[in-house]
């Protein structure tokens, strides 16, 4: 059984027909958003993080039909920001294999929007990023990159 849905993907209105049991993750990859990665299928790794109406969700456990009428954002829709933040990660060597990077970027950029007035503390960053697993880095480089990024962004403001 397929259902017609309409949603905004990275700022562009899209209408598609989706099977009832399809998850948003597969739908987005099929629509060309290859930055959305599958890591675990059980909402346990954060790789498939996208935004629904600006809030991070795990697309491996959100049904595609749920996107109907909503705004979905993937890293493809945040390219200039991703490159700037990515530079901070690269300056620490923290991207390593890179497979978890898009989910991490989506979470960090969402966090930035939740702290409009100040840079979050290291403890707040650790807590916010807890759901983003990475097997390469040991996380310390992610934390260093995030701290530096938020500090620099606040100074610019």
């Amino acid at each position, binding site marked *: 059984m397929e259902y017609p849905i309409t949603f905004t993907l990275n700022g562009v209105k899209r209408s598609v027909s989706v099977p009832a049991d399809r998850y948003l993750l597969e739908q987005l990859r099929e629509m060309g958003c*290859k*930055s*959305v*990665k599958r*890591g*675990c*299928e*059980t909402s*346990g*790794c954060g*790789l498939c993080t996208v935004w629904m109406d600006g809030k991070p969700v795990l697309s491996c456990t959100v049904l595609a039909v749920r996107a109907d009428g909503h705004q979905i954002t*993937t*890293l*493809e829709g945040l*390219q200039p920001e*991703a*490159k700037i*933040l*990515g*530079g901070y*990660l*690269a*300056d*620490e*060597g*923290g*991207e*390593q*294999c*890179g*497979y*978890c*990077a*898009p989910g991490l*970027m989506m979470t960090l950029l969402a966090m930035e929007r939740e702290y409009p007035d100040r840079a979050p503390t290291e403890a707040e960053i*650790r*807590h916010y*990023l*807890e*759901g*983003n*697993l*990475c*097997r*390469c*880095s*040991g*996380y*310390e*480089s*992610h*934390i260093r990159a995030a701290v530096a990024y938020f500090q620099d962004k606040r100074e610019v403001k």
Partner: protein
Amino acid sequence: MSKSYMGSRTRKKDWEALTTGQPVYTDDIAPVGCLVVKLLRSPHAHARIQSIRTDLAMKVPGVVAVYTWEDVPQERFTLAGQTYPEPSAYDRLILDREVRFVGDPVAIVAAETEEAADKALRLIKVQYELLPAVLDYHTAKDNETLIHPEENWHCLCPVGADNHRNLAASGSCEEGDVEKAFAESKWVVEETYHTKACQQAMMETFRTWCQMDAYGRLTVVSSTQIVFHVRRILSNALGIPKSRIRVVKPRIGGGFGAKQTSVSEIYPAFVTLKTGRPSKIIFSRYESQIASSPRHEMELRVKIGADEAGNLKAIEVYTLSNTGAYAEHGPTTVGLSGHKSIPLYRSEAFRFSYDVVYTNQMSAGAYRGYGATQGIFAVESAIDELAHKMGVDPAALRMQNMVRQGDRMPAYYGEISLSNTMDQCLQKVKEAIGWEEKYPRRVMPDGHIRGVGLSLDMQGSGISGVDVGSVTLRVSDDGGYTMLLGCADMGTGCDTILAQMAADMLNCPIESIAVLSGDTDASPYDSGSYASSTTYITGMACVKCCKELTGKILSYGAEMLSCQPEEVEFDGEYVFKTEDPAQKVSLREISYKAESGSGKALEATASHYSPTSPPPYMVGAAEVDIDPETGKLQVVQYEAAVDCGTVVNENLARVQAEGGILQGIGMATMEDVIYDQKGRDMSNSFMQYRLPTKEDFGKIHVQFCPSYEPSGPFGAKSIGEVVINTPSPAIANAVYNAIGIRFRELPITAEKILLALNEKDGK
């Protein structure tokens, strides 16, 4: 003159693609419309297939093929990515009539869609004859149930394998008079340690896609560390010549050794060869947990003796290793459990013996540390137990006995330790963790107890006398270079590190070096990225290659300047006369000249192998916090100092170390492959198999104590594997210092701690 990249914090060459989410991984670039390949897996630990009905499955719309054991070649092979002749026995078929673990493939389905493939899997009807299963590896050797009774099982190397005894390998070696040394010891400890199977759990699961190219050759695009080995494995498995196969690796989402076994390639390769159509297989996380290539479970009996003054007299290690249903990496991992733990110390005599047994559990494989991790947990726990028995500071006992620069290491194949700053590493780590103030324990205001513990550590740099690395460099006609590599950057950054070396050697910006790696048609031969080999082995090939290419550039330039090569120099941009630098010709001009009316190509290829495998050394120290009410353990501080020789890229070396340490903390405290009584893997998702998160530890801090390795490129050794070994023993030792309970089995979980505390208190 360009700047030097050695020791710099140069960004990885692929950073922008990776951090902005570009489609650069295997599944991102799979052909549209390729067949979906799925596997029906055995629900039984040991069974013989009596019959398989595939007719119903074939009727599902969209199903293109269903293959069973009757359809595949009957020559056995190994999936282990090792240099020929592989020490791992040839004990596999693509599909076998006998299934040997829960998850062993029974049938291959190829369909137009995932839904059709899933439906077909449910409609394949299999009748099994159940066989007794060997699920306790202690009972495997000489068990009446044989895992591999088949006549065409064979082993290419004399590793002590015997399929009629369930042995994938066995052997022993020694030097010195072990019995005499123990008899003369005042202090002796003898204990048994147990390390469990652990999953590499790289974020990208196993995956491969295949298609036939325009010349009728099989192209295999796969997330692999070993493109050349995969080509040979596929040739063996499919029964077609290697010349008909091309293997390419795109970006890889992590490997850690898991992808040093050809876990996923044979299935789509078989489908594409049979159907002529592109096909792909993507392992689910479930499959990656239950049918992959985890760390070998090992039980290690360690005996160490010391004289009255605390000098070690003898070390003896016996390892029983569980290789599971297939021998992959079994004979070699077990070697490291002794050969890379015993040589940490000077001792008069040593003995190392081992058995590697087949069981009806998933086949183990290569996992970062490769047996050394298990061996070092055992030996470094035993050394601590010896120190406590003697009533001395474990750090002091280590300082007194550790291997030093210039020492011959009898248990390390008699090699000499030519570059070694482990004593400085220990000193630095003691200071950083605050050993003098914190050892052995502190009771905190909240009632928690904190203890500190440490561990020495070593690994190797490549497989001595075996691993081959090669580099090809070509001058492009704009004066830049193309570097072709056969190694596999799996996130480690070796593409960047080798480009750094080339840029230093050729005196150019790193941007001038374009890298193409991991394509059997284009790359020069490389054994692949494993055994901590790439920086050390392929790095040296890079140095050699740059020297050869520089010689050609000088020779061409001299010819254009009408003089002898000895009269000119190359500054990276120009070849000029030493006597008169104004007389010069640019690399760009030289490269254009070489392309027109010239019989000489401006390119060079160099290969390298090393007769030695210089160990990187490391010391790690953990401070653990234990809540005596709940048993909860947290590593609040982890300090490490690493001697990897010259640090080539400080960022990448640091992240290797931090990442390896956290993987080690996971192994020590939470990661555990658990089977039920029927041999089913219960830790089959990230819900049951927990990985460390950002909140599971306090702080990891890494320092470097570089030595200079004379046989390495720019003095470098390796760092990829050594970094995972210290947490297990350091944490076990810290737990003992905190609560006086010795854990000889991993992982050390809250449950185990609480039960032990209750038992100690007589509850």
